[in-house]
């Protein structure tokens, strides 16, 4: 019996080592994306995650200009940027003269990118890796990165097991958690730093420009499908994996950018999920 064209196509694609790596990277990134993405949307950290992902460009600039190892440099720079942003978000606003927290995050967002652009322009020669960071390069993930991703996923699961209730409380009601004496600041900073690491991991998959979509769309859809925090996390991981694999196959068939294909698929799912709402609004408006 002949195999279905889809299965045949999948088998062809997976016969290449770079596709096998891409598949593994998709699985590993989806796990972190589903878990951290769920915390991101429930803690209203989307803007901060965007700030971290774009500020990471500064890390790329520093790595290229000073000829440092790229990924570690981006990771350290992103962690620093996220810690600063997290501290700003936690700080009490003492005066009207101080800038609002989202303004400060926006400034760091732009400043990181500006630093990256300047340093990359000052670096002699052509930096071919930059495009991979901007738009993702899941097809070019080396084995060393896969190992780092697996290590991070393992650590994330351990931390989640250990801090699940504390992070849940902080996500639901920060003020009450503080009143109960929970270390809200430490838990919040932990969450922000984990977000930074996840963002760096996802930059590999979809690029820093598109990372926000992958971090928010699967958890948002999961939230609509169930009423449990833990279950929505699991569904978000699954949806994220579906988008990554679907995007990879789409990219394989159309020669389009893999990162863009993944996000296009996720965005399409988001739009489809919104259709019932749009129809309902239309009916309400007609009434």
């Amino acid at each position, binding site marked *: 019996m002949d195999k279905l064209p889809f299965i045949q196509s999948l088998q062809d694609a997976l016969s290449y080592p770079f596709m096998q790596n891409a598949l593994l990277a998709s699985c590993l990134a989806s796990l972190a994306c589903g878990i951290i993405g769920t915390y991101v949307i429930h803690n209203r950290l989307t803007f901060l995650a965007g700030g971290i992902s774009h500020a990471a460009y500064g890390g790329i600039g520093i790595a290229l200009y000073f000829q440092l190892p790229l990924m570690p440099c981006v990771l350290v720079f992103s962690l620093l940027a996220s810690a600063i942003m997290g501290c700003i978000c936690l700080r009490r606003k003492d005066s009207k003269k101080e800038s609002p927290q989202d303004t400060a995050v926006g400034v760091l967002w732009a400043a990181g990118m500006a630093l990256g652009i300047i340093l990359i322009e000052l670096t002699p020669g052509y930096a071919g890796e930059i495009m991979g960071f901007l738009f993702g390069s899941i097809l070019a993930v080396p084995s060393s990165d896969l190992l780092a991703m697996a290590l991070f996923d393992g650590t994330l699961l351990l931390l989640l097991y250990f801090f699940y209730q504390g992070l849940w409380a902080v996500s639901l009601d*920060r003020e009450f958690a503080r*009143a109960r004496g929970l270390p809200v600041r430490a838990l919040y900073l932990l969450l922000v730093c984990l977000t930074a690491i996840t963002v760096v991991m996802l930059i590999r998959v979809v690029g820093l420009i598109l990372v926000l979509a992958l971090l928010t769309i699967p958890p948002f859809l999961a939230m609509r499908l169930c009423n449990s*925090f833990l279950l929505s996390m699991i569904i978000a991981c699954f949806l994220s994996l579906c988008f990554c694999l679907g995007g990879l196959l789409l990219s394989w068939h159309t020669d389009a950018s893999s990162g863009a294909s993944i996000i296009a698929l996720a965005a399409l799912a988001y739009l489809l999920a919104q259709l019932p709402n749009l129809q309902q609004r239309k009916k309400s408006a007609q009434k």
Partner: protein
Amino acid sequence: MNMSAAVSDPGAAPPPACSPKASDALSSVVEVSGVTFKYGQDTILEKVSLNVAPGEFLALIGPNGGGKTTLLHLILGLLQPDSGAIRVFGNPPGSMNRRIGYVPQFSTAWLDFPASVLEMVLMGAATPSLNGGRWRIDKNATKQAMEYLDVLGIADCARLQISALSGGQRQRAMVARALMSHPDIVRASPSPSGEIPFLMLLDEPTASIDPQGTFCFYEFLGKLRGHISLLVVSHDLFMVSPFFNSIAVVNKGLIRLQSTELTPDNLTALFGRHLHDCPVADLQHAGKVLHQTGCTHPSCAEKNTAPASKTRYPSSFLKQDR
């Protein structure tokens, strides 16, 4: 749950704030001495002093921005005063929060968070630990939470999402969560020694509740008399008046009112001088009508043994001799 033996009659006149035995145990649950607090250059509270006696039901009223919520946050240790001292159960603020049930303003809990009412209430027993915070979710804890939800009349909502509750139900759920931090508070009889080891801080608990729900809510709080000390931020002088021992106006400074009645002075303190002549008679009349009618809410009507037409509240509330 047998409430009849444990709770006080909400219609009874408020007892003295502090029994002699309670005084022996601890003279003040909260001691605020000359506290000043500033946000940058803006002074929010200036040389505020306040003592809350064990068992006292104190309402903090005052205009928006007057510093009421800030005062609660200082008592909880969420903010540090610029000068002055605060003691809670004789200890620095923040160190005794396991003996405090706190109900923040309604807007702090995310309404789209995927959690059931029961899950949220269980969180009330959270204690700090090495892993950030933990609480029990076993059978006993669930039973306890269900009992509180039952007392508050929302046991049927336990499995619902927080987002499915009305404003009033959500506030009740938050009170149940606050009570979870002190097991058996409602079930147990008042301590023979007069010790009242639990303080509840409620920040505008009825801000989003209709008058009927507000009435029921304060009626429930009245049932906790003798079990807790209570500090409530409210704009509802009307409602808090019959249920509380004392009222304090917070507007940068703090003034304790001489009585909890709807006197012209008290109404002026709440509404401001420009309305002084107008509302007193109207409000007194409205108060009279309300308290003669009682609450007709089905959930309350079932539990009320006294006929709704009987006045079950302190007659002093309705004094007309001003």
